[in-house]
């Protein structure tokens, strides 16, 4: 009700996010991407309640198992079954949960590290040089080979210490997160360097605000928008990286489905059962496409030069 009356005559300050949301809503690609992503997340979260077949269920009798192997899609198994007679839909739902969780957590690590490095480098002058050299150093590392090497070296040790599921999850999430924070750090540092010279920071400093408070209340909220764009791109690339690792056989262990792992297992059977590679591949591609479109929409919506128009 106030929406129509507000507008030009209201002296109530508009939240800057309202404008962002308005722009975002008009970005067709971003809205479709968001819808697809939300659908996929819902499917992965709610799906296992609706589709109650255990993804690890194998017919206990060998004869039954042989009969349920490599079935084509049908009503009982909408996506067919795999070489052990496990239901592919259930495995897709379980695998999607892991793939999305890996993407989210790895992205969160990358963003946390990247923002911390960027803020420190931009705000603390004597840290700027060393931290940026560190960033350059990480950018010069061959990331995919290094990730593969890290998985090879630490998988067994971590799996032994923390259990195979948690160990692998932490290893992959940590490895991806610690090798993809550099872009965020660079962007944040640039923003912080510019923000530091602004009057409101000077004002805050002159009334004696401690540096930590300045960072928390004045700097961080203002670097939120580039961080959000970096986060969406990081989410997409983390999902792709995890799938690539699993696809190369150096990700999650065999009985622990992720979309990349399902694709990897399907490759062996793709001559007879192309569905085995089609479904996980489509799931990865749709997720990444959706996230990338959201990122595009966010970038347009958050770009202040465009908002003025």
């Amino acid at each position, binding site marked *: 009700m106030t929406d129509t009356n507000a507008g030009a005559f209201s002296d109530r300050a508009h939240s800057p996010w309202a404008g962002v949301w308005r722009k975002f809503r008009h970005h067709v*690609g971003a809205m479709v991407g968001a819808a697809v992503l939300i659908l996929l997340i819902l499917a992965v979260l709610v799906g296992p309640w609706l589709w109650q077949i255990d993804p690890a269920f194998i017919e206990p009798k060998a004869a039954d198992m042989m009969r349920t192997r490599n079935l084509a899609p049908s009503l009982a198994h909408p996506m067919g079954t795999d070489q052990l007679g496990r239901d592919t839909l259930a495995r897709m739902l379980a695998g999607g949960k892991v793939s999305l969780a890996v993407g989210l957590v790895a992205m969160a690590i990358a963003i946390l590290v990247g923002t911390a490095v960027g803020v420190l480098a931009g705000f603390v002058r004597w840290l700027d040089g060393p931290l940026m050299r560190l960033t*350059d*150093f990480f950018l*010069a*590392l*061959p*990331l*995919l*080979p*290094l990730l*593969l*090497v*890290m998985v*090879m*070296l*630490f*998988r*067994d*040790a971590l799996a032994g210490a923390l259990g195979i599921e948690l160990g692998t999850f932490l290893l992959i999430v940590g490895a991806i997160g610690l090798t993809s924070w550099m872009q965020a750090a660079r962007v944040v540092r640039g923003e912080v360097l510019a923000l530091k010279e602004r009057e409101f920071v000077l004002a805050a400093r002159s009334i004696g605000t401690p540096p930590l408070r300045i960072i928390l209340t004045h700097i961080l909220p203002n670097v939120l928008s580039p961080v959000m764009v970096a986060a969406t791109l990081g989410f*997409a690339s983390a999902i*792709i990286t995890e*799938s*690539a690792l699993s*696809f*190369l*056989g*150096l990700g999650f262990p065999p009985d622990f489905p992720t979309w*990349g792992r399902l*694709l990897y297992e399907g*490759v062996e059977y*793709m*001559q007879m059962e*192309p569905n085995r*590679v*089609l479904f996980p*591949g489509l799931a*990865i*591609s749709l997720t*990444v*496409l959706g996230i*990338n*479109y959201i990122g*595009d929409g966010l970038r347009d919506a958050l770009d202040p030069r465009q908002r003025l128009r």
Partner: protein
Amino acid sequence: MLTYALRRLLLAIPTLLLISLFIFLMVDLAPGSPMSEIPRSIPPETRARMIAALGADQPVFVRYLLWLKQFFVVEPAYLIDGWFGTSLGGDQQRILSWQSRAPVFDVIGDRLGRTMTVVGAGYVIAAAIALPIGIYSAYRQYSWFDQLGTFVAMIGYSVPTFFTGVLLIVIFAVNLGWFPSYYDASLKVKDFASLSRQVWQMALPVTVIALFHAAEISRYTRSSMLDTLGQDYVRTARAKGALEQTVVIKHALRNAMIPVITVLALGMPSIFGGSIIVEQVFKINGIGGALIGAIVASDLPMVQTLTFIFAALIVFFNLVADLLYGMMDPRIRYD
């Protein structure tokens, strides 16, 4: 410019040393011992001798320095020996693979050509497709061509190469049977028939690489071209009555190409990284495949050397990109 180039070259040396140290230490200090591959039935003294024979009983820094010497002194010496028939290498120890007991560089030299051919062809084709599309998309912004191009580029950029590769195999190799589904490394190009078979088996992997990178390059070209087309000097050129093609090609395109060429150079190392996946999909016997094989077999010298070569490629192409940027853009001064 020359002093800048020299300074950058000199700066690359400590960077490379640091990276090599990082890789060496990470591989070395990791909990998974390479010796865990030795069966338990072997008695301890034999085990100790095996470890000593591999040189794994020395302290870390001794082995690091030895590896450095082997990589930067012994191996180039052998390379020169191979070219000119000299004997600079003498009988010095080369970097040996733990898997095959063959020198690591012989394996790499054998496979590098294959990776280069596939990856290079893919990248050249990607650039050849993407540049015109990106330029025309920007020139006719929001036209149906632009909309379609942007959409296809977004898809190409989002769909991972391991899925495109598998999809192409299912469609064109399994269902249609037009192309072989894997790469036959033993094929030697001697005559026209074997050349056409070579082109045929390269078609699918090259397409996968080309599609992915074309998407990336065309997105970049489009936005760079959009930037320059909006510049004042382009408006001035139009206002003074220059031909449209002169405006687009001479005034806009030449300036738009500066960042694009830099990005092309910066993208080179990432295609070598990406080749790991493509080689795995199409069973190409290249350096990416060698890395995976070495990782699975815990062949540490091979893993260290290959990872370092990937790192050296990145540092090298970063350098090339920086120098190209300075050479092409006269506004940039390095004083």
